[in-house]
């Protein structure tokens, strides 16, 4: 039998030169689309760096929905832009909150049609919310949604809750006439979506890329200037950044290290980036159920001992800015109390003052240069960060070095993220670097950082407020905020909340998360910039639709 196998083997050997020849001939046709296409029909090409492959799932209720579903296919009633604090009416033209704060009424835009030609009505809105609530939860303050006429929707709340307006407004609306026939909306993949958005027609769906072509019935056809959107799948930032560097994508909404040299320098005339610090605040969380973190003087002293300028420059590539003692990210610029910022000092680097504060609080420096706790144990703890977040890891390392200088030992502990967040959730961690809640108003941030509503005892699973700190004073202010929709009154309450945060230091704010965004205007112009911040450069935000309806293709 052996000879026959050997014979087969020889045949395989003979096939090798052929295969090599085939591979070599293949090379000639290897030119990728990188040239500047300016026919006017060029597709807006956007990479998605965290999806190695796409699955054809355009169900907006799915947690793994295909990119652009919430941005280009389905639309919300209004678009809130954290970059300039403006609100743009979208599917709704007006909205009012009742005097008692118990109901919100939206007036819908007339003349809007779904991509299949059916009219968009208040029934669609009234259908969307209960479904969203049933499938994904949330909206626990929502009593009922009613279409009072063709173009009016009234939301009844079970308690006055002013932040509701923004949550209701940003919910994307789905067509009732399509979804009421879907047997199991949670599991449907919605392969042929029907939406009101500018780009709804799925074309050429492959696992590595797909295209969205214009909605034939869009309500503002004069803004559908681009021929279509093409999404590319990448198994990580490296591949997506390579495509950006090579000029193969128009929009690079992902983290690019050393962006000036690795991206802009290849074509400084056309390539730009803008990282507005409007993301969630990144905080150093301390487990306030453990000594010494239960002492606000210690939290403030440790905060004062760390050099945020270096953290931002070295750890974050200089892409963001140091936080101040209001804890508010750049998205809340309009709410920030500047006089408070100027008056408090625990977020300003001063190692000497920090050391003195610790001496006074009863954490003396020993003769060996390390501090001890009042009970004589060494002042040492862990900073836990997920090993895959290299930027935050270097932030933790800088904190650790800073603290060593005032005699405090902070070990950077970096297992995989699931292990880190498990410790955060059950309250067994010492300290960690954690993002915060980020909503259109500062309500969410302060509720999660110092309201008692989200505080769980150690051992019980917490999903927010990992640091387990809450004061009733904050609850009182938060309730006041939720009860009023008067802007002056809200502002007064937020000022009090800021002062309370500065006093208690529930978490140590480090820097606001930047929203990554880079673009080349070789093929498309009209991008948002720091000078014209009509949207952020994020491709996953609710403002993305503003970018899609503002771009103009370069022709000729």
């Amino acid at each position, binding site marked *: *039998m*052996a000879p026959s*196998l*050997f014979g087969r083997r*020889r045949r*395989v*050997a003979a096939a*090798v030169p052929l*295969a*090599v020849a085939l*591979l070599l001939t*293949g*090379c000639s*046709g*290897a*030119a990728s*689309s990188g040239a500047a296409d300016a026919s006017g029909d060029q597709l807006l090409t956007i990479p998605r760096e965290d999806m*190695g*492959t796409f*699955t054809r*799932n355009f*169900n907006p209720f799915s*947690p*793994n929905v295909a990119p652009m579903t919430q941005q280009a296919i389905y639309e919300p009633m209004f678009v809130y832009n954290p970059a300039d604090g403006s609100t743009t009416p979208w599917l709704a033209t007006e909205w009012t909150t009742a005097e008692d704060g118990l109901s919100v009424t939206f007036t819908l835009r007339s003349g809007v049609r779904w991509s299949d030609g059916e009219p968009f009505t208040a029934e669609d809105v009234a259908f969307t919310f209960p479904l969203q609530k049933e*499938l*994904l*939860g*949330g909206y626990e303050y929502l009593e009922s949604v009613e279409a009072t006429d063709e173009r009016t929707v009234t939301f009844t709340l079970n308690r006055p809750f002013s932040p509701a307006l923004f949550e209701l407004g940003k919910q994307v609306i789905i067509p009732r006439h399509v979804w009421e026939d879907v047997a199991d909306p949670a*599991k449907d*993949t919605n392969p042929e979506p029907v939406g009101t958005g500018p780009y709804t027609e799925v074309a*050429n769906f*492959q*696992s*590595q*890329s797909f*295209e969205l072509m214009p909605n034939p019935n869009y309500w503002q056809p004069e803004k559908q200037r681009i021929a279509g959107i*093409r999404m*590319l*799948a*990448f*198994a990580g930032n*490296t*591949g997506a950044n*390579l*495509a950006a560097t*090579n000029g193969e994508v128009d929009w690079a909404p992902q983290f690019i290290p050393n962006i000036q040299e690795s991206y802009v320098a290849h074509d400084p005339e056309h390539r730009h980036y803008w990282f507005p610090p409007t*993301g*969630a605040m990144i905080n150093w969380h301390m487990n306030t159920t453990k000594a010494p973190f239960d002492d606000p003087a210690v939290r403030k002293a440790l905060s004062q001992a760390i050099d945020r300028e270096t953290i931002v420059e070295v750890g974050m590539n200089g892409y963001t800015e140091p936080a101040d003692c209001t804890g508010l990210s750049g998205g809340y610029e309009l709410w920030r109390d500047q006089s408070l910022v100027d008056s408090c000092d625990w977020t300003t680097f001063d190692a000497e003052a920090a050391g003195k504060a610790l001496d006074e609080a009863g954490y003396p420096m020993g003769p060996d240069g390390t501090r001890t706790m009042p009970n004589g144990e060494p002042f040492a703890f862990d900073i836990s960060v997920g090993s895959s977040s290299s930027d935050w890891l270097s932030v933790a390392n800088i904190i650790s070095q800073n603290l060593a200088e005032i005699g405090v030992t902070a070990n950077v502990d970096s297992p*995989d*993220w699931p*292990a880190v*967040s*498990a410790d955060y959730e059950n309250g067994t961690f010492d300290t960690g670097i954690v*993002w*915060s*809640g*980020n909503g259109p108003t500062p309500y969410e941030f302060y509720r999660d950082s110092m309201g008692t509503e989200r505080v769980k005892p150690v051992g019980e699973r917490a*999903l*927010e407020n990992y640091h387990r700190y809450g004061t009733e004073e904050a609850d009182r202010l938060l309730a006041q905020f939720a009860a009023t929709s008067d802007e002056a009154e809200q502002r007064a309450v937020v000022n009090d909340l800021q002062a309370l945060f500065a006093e208690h230091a529930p978490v140590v704010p480090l820097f606001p998360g930047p929203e990554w965004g880079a673009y080349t205007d070789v093929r498309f112009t009209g991008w948002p910039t720091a000078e014209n911040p009509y949207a952020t450069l994020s491709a*996953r935000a609710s403002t993305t639709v503003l970018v899609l309806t503002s771009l103009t293709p370069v022709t000729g």
Partner: protein
Amino acid sequence: MRFILRNLGFYLIAFWTSITLNFLLPRFMPGDPVSRMFSQAQDQMRPEQMDELRRLFGLDDRPLWEQYLSYVGNVFTGEMGTSISRFPTPVSEVIGSQIGWTLLLGATALLIAVVVGNLLGVLAAWRRGGPLDSALPPLLVFVGSFPYFWLAMGALYLFGVTLGWFPLRHAFDVGLTPEFSWPFLSNVASHLVLPALTIVLVTIGGWMLGMRNTMIATVAEDYITMAEAKGLRPGRIMFRYAARNALLPSVTNFGMALGFVVGGALLTEVVFAYPGVGYQLLDAVQGLDYPLMQGIFLTITAAVLVANFVVDIIYVRLDPRVRAR
């Protein structure tokens, strides 16, 4: 026949062990897929949604043994559940849509490495101490000892970015629709060159050295001397007498490598954004997507075991000595 049956028993036990490990390991990992998704989405997801998601994914809180029993049952019916990171796509569909590319990449690279490597091994041993024998093995071992990731990135940078000879990513150009036509197939082939080439570069040294060493031992055998004494043509002695006998260990290795084709190209797929199951495995592990992880592991395990079983059978035919026990 008894030999095959005995082996079959062994393979069944191995299969059972691996599916049991496959069941247990992900469950010992800290965290759960929903809180993982929550922490990844950062501020995009509300905590109230998490319980709903758990319900939606059908994450079970039944006792472990009950989950295990239904898991084993499902393994035999081929029902692998629904992927969490690609919800609501069934695991079998996720794997099915990607595995073709992985097989194409892995099989091409393996075939080239095995054929060329063995051929070089035969030639090197035949001209022992000659230029081929003294230059190539150290060179290939040197290349093969590079960290693979680095080598792949280097090749990508040099041949893709700088020289622009080969495409940088994906299995074919964006905008093309898969079809059986010359332009499409040649496009696929050009996308295959760099990923396959890098795998061949790191693996070929092993094949060559293995073949060379067995071949040297074989060439020293008496029957080769006799064949030479009879005045047979050197080419005939080299291939028909020596190489044929020296091939046996390579066949075993080939069987093992065949099994690893499914899971072995993970890094390649990540570097070249090649749409195969390797990247999906990484994705599944990072997202704690148990069903998908188990599905892929199961596929890999099955592939390795089946390939080995087949090689065992072939081996019996090739070398009667294994039967005589």
